[in-house]
């Protein structure tokens, strides 16, 4: 296949280019590809000795990659070891794992992800059927989410409403009708 720009060389790669406000995929030769998308120059202070500059130019992408990789790994580790704490009773995940007891009703919301798996393991059917209080009352946190959901619906913010509905549902309460906001 010939280059779709110069029509002389053989096409080597595909590039994306806006033509008449429309993005098109073109198969082009190497020289046309470089002409369309010249490689980004790395800004290096001029006062550095030439040898150092060459070395930097050569190794910078690799160093940046290493730094980025390390950052991602570090933040990943940080995320993994982060110990969530219940805002009401102060119980941390590690406290809970030691004592195997929760500190308050809010803990079921704080540790919802850990507990969902545990409840699935402990009980064959992880959904309550049976007696219920005469006047069930959601927690303050769930009440707030429900209030936010009502506001999101009134203001026709569908994405926010969907997210709030999902969170309320995950915390065990019925978020109400799920029809789309029109």
């Amino acid at each position, binding site marked *: 296949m010939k280059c779709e720009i110069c029509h002389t060389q053989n096409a080597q790669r595909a590039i994306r280019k806006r033509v008449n406000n429309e993005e098109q995929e073109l198969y082009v030769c190497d020289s046309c590809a470089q002409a369309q998308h010249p490689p980004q120059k790395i800004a290096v202070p001029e006062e550095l000795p030439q040898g150092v500059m060459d070395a930097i130019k050569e190794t910078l992408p690799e160093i940046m990659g290493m730094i980025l990789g390390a950052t991602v790994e570090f933040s990943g580790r940080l995320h993994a070891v982060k110990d969530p704490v219940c805002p*009401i*009773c*102060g*119980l941390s995940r590690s406290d809970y794992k030691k*004592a*195997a*007891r*929760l*500190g*308050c*009703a809010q803990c*079921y919301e704080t540790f919802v992800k850990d*507990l969902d798996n*545990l*409840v699935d393991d*402990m*009980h*064959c*059917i*992880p*959904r*309550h*059927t*049976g*007696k*219920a*209080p*005469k*006047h*069930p*009352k*959601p*927690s*303050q946190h*769930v009440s707030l989410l429900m209030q936010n959901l009502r506001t999101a619906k009134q203001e026709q913010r569908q994405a926010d409403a969907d997210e709030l509905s999902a969170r309320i549902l995950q*915390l*065990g*309460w*019925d978020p109400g009708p799920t029809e789309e906001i029109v």
Partner: protein
Amino acid sequence: MTDLGAIIRKRSKRLKVTRIPAEDVLMGCRVRLARNVQSHVFPDRATPGQATAVLNKIMAVIADTHQKTLLAAIKDFNEQERLNLFEEHLISKELMTRETGGIAISIDKAMVVMVNEEDHLRIQGFAKGMDIESAWRQADAMDSLLDEKLSYAWTPRLGYLTACPSNLGTGMRASIMLHLMGLRMTGELEAVIRGLERMRLLVRGLYGEGSESAGHIYQISNMETLGMNEQAILARMKRICEEVVRQECNARARIIQNSPRIVQDFFIRSLSLLQHVLMMPSEEAIELLSALRFGVSIGLVTDLTVQDVDELMLKIQPGHLMRECNELLPPDKRDEFRALLLNLRLAKALVKAT
């Protein structure tokens, strides 16, 4: 000269056991409901002030709604009194040491509320035999009364929220206490327990969670509290326990049929020890009384009823012995006093020769 051969031939006659009463295998049942009050930290994480506030709130509601109930704070009981309540299965071992705990007992002792144990409320209903529906009605009635005044921690998906997720949902643990001496003697008990555990039932000792089996007495209770309603849990428990009772009766019948002399000898040895020894530790006493209970049940031990033996099993416990003596006794003195009590109470009992 004595004709020993004639005596042995005479003794070798079949034991005259006409009936294996299934009701004697049953030692009572209990239904417990775990509840927590909305917006209050659970007992384990609560400060003494927070726990006391919950205790006072719950006690005030019970006093208001349930007139025929005795209310008390655990801190108002001395060590021996706490032990007595534990030995009568009215409170748990855990509540004995909770200074911010409380207890409400109905006058007939068929309903007990433990306050600030693992959860804010442990509402318990008790009944005889396998009348687990009656135990449920006792606990349910109290729960409904409290629900009028207290706002429970509850969600539609997880039901009643409890300190331990193993109690979530109905918060209900139904237990039936069984005397499984026959299955132990035939060596079938381990297989039966494994079968029960496969059916997701808990098998515990005489004093529930964490207790060892003593005197071949076992508490069988539902493991799962979420996903099945209360009636379904009770019906399943009853169905399975009826089958265990049937197996126990069969085991007893086979022992009597196949090894009558061994059984008689076993009863005679047990009774003789209980009637004559001078020191008797409680574990040994429970084992021997358990054997005696079996003998009484099939009519081979005279001058005693199964209820008498059950009462003795309670009276020989350390707390009850100390109450009887009205003083704190060290273990060796308790063993001596226990032996004396058993010697006197069982003096007239006899194992029938045939």
